[in-house]
C-alpha cells in the first residue's frame, strides 16, 4: 500500500513545485511590468491568477483525499497539513503578484527610472526566496529553509530603503504614482513574508518544530 501512498505524496509535491514555478514567473513578470510599465503583461498576470486558483483547489482536494484514504501519520501527516498551508501561501503570493500588476495599470504611463530598477532587484530577490523555500521542501533541505527565514531581514531593510528613497523624491505631481510604487514594494515585502511562512512549514515538516513566532527554535 505504501507504494501507492508514496506515489500520491509525490504527485502533490510535484504539483506544488509546478505551482511555485508558475507563481515565480508571475512575480518576475510583475516587477518586469512595473519597470517597463507594460500593461499588457500586467493583464496577462491578472488572467493567470484564475489558473492558480484552480490549481489551489485541486491540491486542496488531493490533500483531503489523501487524508481520507490513507490517514497519514507522523511525518506524512505534517507533510499534508503543511502542504495545505503552503498551498494557501502560494495562492496568496499569486494574489500579491496580481496586486502588483494592478499597481502597474494604475501607474499606466510614465518613466520610473532608478526606483523601478531597484524594485526589480528586490523582486528578483523575493523570487529567489520563493524558489529556495520550495526547493527546501522538495530537497528536504533544512539549512536552505533557515536561510530563507533569515534573509527576510534583508528584504525588510531593502523595502525600507526603497520607500525612503521614494518618499525623498515625492512631490505633488508624482504623489499618486509613488504611492502605487510604495504599495508595490509593500506587496513584494508581503510575498517575502509568505515565503518565510513556507519555510517555517518546511521546517515543521522536516523537524516537527514550530518556529513560527519562536525564532529561538530555529
Amino acid at each position, binding site marked *: *500500500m505504501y*507504494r501507492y501512498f508514496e506515489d500520491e505524496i509525490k504527485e502533490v509535491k510535484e504539483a506544488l513545485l*509546478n*505551482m511555485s514555478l508558475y507563481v515565480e514567473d508571475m512575480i518576475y513578470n510583475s516587477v518586469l511590468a512595473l519597470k517597463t510599465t507594460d500593461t499588457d503583461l500586467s493583464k496577462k498576470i491578472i488572467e493567470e491568477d484564475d489558473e492558480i486558483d484552480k490549481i489551489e483547489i485541486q491540491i486542496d482536494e488531493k490533500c483531503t*483525499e489523501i487524508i481520507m484514504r490513507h490517514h497519514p501519520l507522523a511525518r506524512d501527516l505534517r507533510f499534508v497539513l503543511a502542504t495545505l498551508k503552503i498551498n494557501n501561501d502560494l495562492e496568496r503570493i499569486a494574489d500579491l503578484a496580481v496586486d502588483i500588476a494592478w499597481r502597474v495599470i494604475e501607474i499606466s504611463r510614465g518613466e520610473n527610472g532608478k526606483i523601478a530598477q531597484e524594485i526589480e532587484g528586490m523582486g528578483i530577490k523575493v523570487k529567489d526566496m520563493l524558489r529556495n523555500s520550495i526547493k527546501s521542501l522538495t530537497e528536504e533541505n533544512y539549512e536552505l529553509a533557515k536561510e530563507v527565514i533569515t534573509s527576510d531581514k534583508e528584504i525588510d531593510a531593502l523595502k525600507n530603503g526603497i520607500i525612503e528613497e521614494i518618499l525623498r523624491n515625492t512631490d505633488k505631481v508624482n504623489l499618486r504614482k509613488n504611492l502605487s510604487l510604495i504599495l508595490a514594494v509593500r506587496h513584494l515585502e508581503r510575498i517575502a513574508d509568505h515565503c518565510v511562512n513556507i519555510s517555517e512549514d518546511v521546517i515543521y515538516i522536516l523537524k516537527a518544530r514550530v518556529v513560527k513566532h519562536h525564532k529561538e527554535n530555529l
Partner: protein
Amino acid sequence: MLTLNIKEELNKTEEKTKIKVKDLNFYYGPKQTLKNISMDIYEKKVTAIIGPSGCGKSTFIRLFNRMDEFVLESKSEGEIIIDGKNILEKDTDLIDLRRRVGMVFQKPNPFPKTIMENIAYGLKVNGWKDNFQIETRVIDSLKKSALWEEVKYRLKENAYGLSGGQQQRLCIARCIAVRPEIILFDEPCASLDPISTAKIEELIMDLKKDYTIVIVTHNMQQAARISDYTAFFLMGEMIEYGLTKNIFENPKDKRTEDYITGRFG
C-alpha cells in the same frame, strides 16, 4: 502553459457495468438478510462493501459465485446479472461461474499441499494436464501476486510453512491462476497484521488493472484506501452507494455519516 499531473480519474463517470444487481432479496430461513438491493458494479474497479457485522455484506458477495449453495434453507429473489446472464437462475452452471468469479476468504485457507500444488489445483480442476503449461501459469500467478521472490526456492514445500500474510497472497495467486474475471474478497485482511495487510492492499490495487474486484471489509479505512466505489450496508439494506470519495467526504445519508465517523450505535 504549465500542466499539472493530478489525475482526475475519480471524476470520470463513464464506467462499464460488469455486475448488475436488481431487486435482490435473500432469506435465511424465515429471516430476510438482504432487502431489495440494486446496484451496478463496474468493470476493472474496486468496489468496497462496508457495514457493521451481520449487515449481510458477506452474504451479498457470496451470491456472486453462488456460495450460498451450501447454506441450508436459504432462498434468493431478484437478479444478479453478470455479462448479461442472471446467475441466480436454476440452470446456471455453477462450476463455470465459480471459475469466472474467484474468491479469497477471510482466513487464509491454503490446502495442506505444496505451494506448487496449491496453485495448480484450480488448473487441474479445469482439466489442465500439461505440466509445463501448469508450471508456467503457477509462476506467472506467483509473480502477479508479489509472492514469487519470497517462495521461488520453496515451491515444493508445504504451504502451511508460510506466514499468514504469505498464505493469503498464495490464496490470491491460486485464485488468479484460473484467470477469473471477477475476484471477490471476503474480509481478506481480517486475520492479518498491518504489514501483511498493507501488502495485500497493494496487491489488490495492482490487480485492479486486470480484474473487477469486490471487497467486503469492516475496516472502513481499508475501503477508503483501496476502493473506487463504496457501498454501505446496514441490516440487510444498502443505505448508500457511490464513489468512495463521496461516501467518505460527503455522505448523503445520516446513517452512513454516523457509521463512518464512528458515531454508530
